[in-house]
């Protein structure tokens, strides 16, 4: 199977077990949701897979990567140089706050072409052309002009689209999205979710979507894994986890949502 396979991932930090044996499979062409409350370790799972865990953290377990072309039995065992050839090239990440993840002093063009030239060895001109295509792909208006602009000249929704463009630039096979729409308005969020789904279907990406919003989960995820205290307590198809949760904790999580009848339908407050 192609995609990412996380097995028994443990992260110890200052004597505390932040992750306590996480098992998740992220198959290609699917969105795998990672849900849970704050402090459950869902963000740490994403970061640890990328080798971005906090300094001093001790990591055990395996993360197997396979995209049909390249197989890595365990990403965690790679040396820094080998890991750097994977990150940004085959595994990419989108963070929650695009105003923080993009460099304010560099133009969008620079930030979109830097890793293209490094990883793929493209010439300046070729990278520029590809960057414009990418902006078009994520539907940023007037790509050529956008390349010359700086992050502060865009709205939050546009910036997150650009951050996604940066992430998919080198055609990675795995995308880790950590709360990619939390900082956005609902109408903008809807657009970014559609984009994420589209990219998954068109490019066959394996997406690990970390979010606390079960509404978002329900909209784009194919399977949902619920985390608690650093371990996955339930993992199953979207419909089953949200509508017929098997474990008590997943049930609690679903029930803690404000009971929301679909808008525009007359129903009493319950």
């Amino acid at each position, binding site marked *: 199977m192609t995609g990412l396979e996380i097995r028994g991932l443990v992260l110890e930090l200052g004597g505390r077990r932040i992750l306590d044996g996480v098992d998740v499979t992220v198959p290609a062409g699917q969105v795998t949701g990672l849900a849970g*409350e*704050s*402090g459950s370790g869902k963000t740490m799972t994403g970061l640890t897979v990328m080798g971005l865990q906090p300094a001093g953290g001790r990591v055990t377990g395996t993360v197997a990567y396979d995209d049909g072309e390249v197989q890595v039995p365990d990403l965690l065992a790679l040396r820094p140089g080998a890991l750097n050839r994977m990150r940004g090239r085959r595994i990419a990440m989108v963070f929650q706050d695009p105003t923080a993840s993009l460099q304010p002093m560099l133009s969008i063009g620079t930030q979109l072409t830097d890793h293209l030239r490094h990883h793929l060895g493209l010439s300046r001109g070729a990278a520029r052309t590809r960057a414009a295509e990418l902006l078009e792909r994520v539907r940023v208006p007037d790509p050529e002009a956008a390349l010359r602009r700086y992050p502060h000249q865009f709205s*939050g929704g546009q910036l997150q689209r650009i951050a996604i463009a940066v992430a998919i630039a080198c055609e990675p096979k795995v995308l880790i999205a950590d709360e990619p729409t939390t900082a956005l*308005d*609902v*109408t*903008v*969020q*809807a*657009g970014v*979710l*559609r984009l994420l*789904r589209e990219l998954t279907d068109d490019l066959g990406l394996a997406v690990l979507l970390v979010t*606390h*919003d*079960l*509404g*978002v*989960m*329900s*909209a*784009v*995820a*194919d399977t949902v894994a619920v985390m608690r205290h650093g371990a996955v307590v339930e993992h199953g198809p*979207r*419909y*089953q*986890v*949200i*509508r017929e949760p098997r474990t008590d904790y997943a049930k609690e*999580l*679903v029930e*803690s*949502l*404000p009971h*929301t*009848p*679909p*808008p*525009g*339908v*007359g*129903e*009493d*407050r319950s």
Partner: protein
Amino acid sequence: MTARLAVEGATVTYRQPGRGVLTAVDGVDLEVRAGEVVGLVGESGCGKSTLARAVCGLEPLTGGRILLDGEPVKRLGFRPREVRQRRIQMVFQNPYASLNPRRRVGAQIEDGRRVAEGGAPSVAELLDAVGLDAVAAGRYPHEFSGGQRQRVAIARAMATGPDLLIGDEPIASLDASLQARVADLMRRVALDRGASLLFISHDLAVVRVIADRIAVMQAGRIVEQGPAEQVWADPQHPYTRRLLAAIPIADGLGRLPAV
């Protein structure tokens, strides 16, 4: 019932160098009655935070007026404001920035109590009301999580015994599982102490649960206003309909929200 807070034709403009004048709040009429929770929703940039700041006197009005129990709210300057005007309190969006990191939580709540004219509940009672333990008073803000900090901020605002509590996106930086809880807590704490609540958020789903009335704001104007259930179930304005359609519903069906 008389209005506790009456906003009449309030207009706030910003001068932008080289780009003319931006009207952030454009002739807004809004009323918050005693013991009422009003939810103000809209997307970022629609002027809802500017309106909140204007209500507190943090933003000068270009036109219209804002009355608290019939008295105009004065602009906040460097001088301490009149006692009567301290009855408006605000809970800000970011509890990491709104609490002083170098002072104990108890001391910060104590500041609020000193403003109240007698009869203020004790720090322990205030902490208890927001679901925190009394020992929390001796800790510093960094020892708390985001949700707990926002509870501290609510306790501090309530310590002054306000008549009007304003929450400017108080739940935006919290977890989904916490958002509904903290919003509900704000409603309960405010109403228990006889304060009205103006709750500002971009999240209609949460506002619907705690507000008696909802006002929807777009580009500086209020486009729709009404009882919460009515706005939710039978939205009149196309903008409200668009906002509602974009909310992803946790129904497990994998439906992408409309753009």
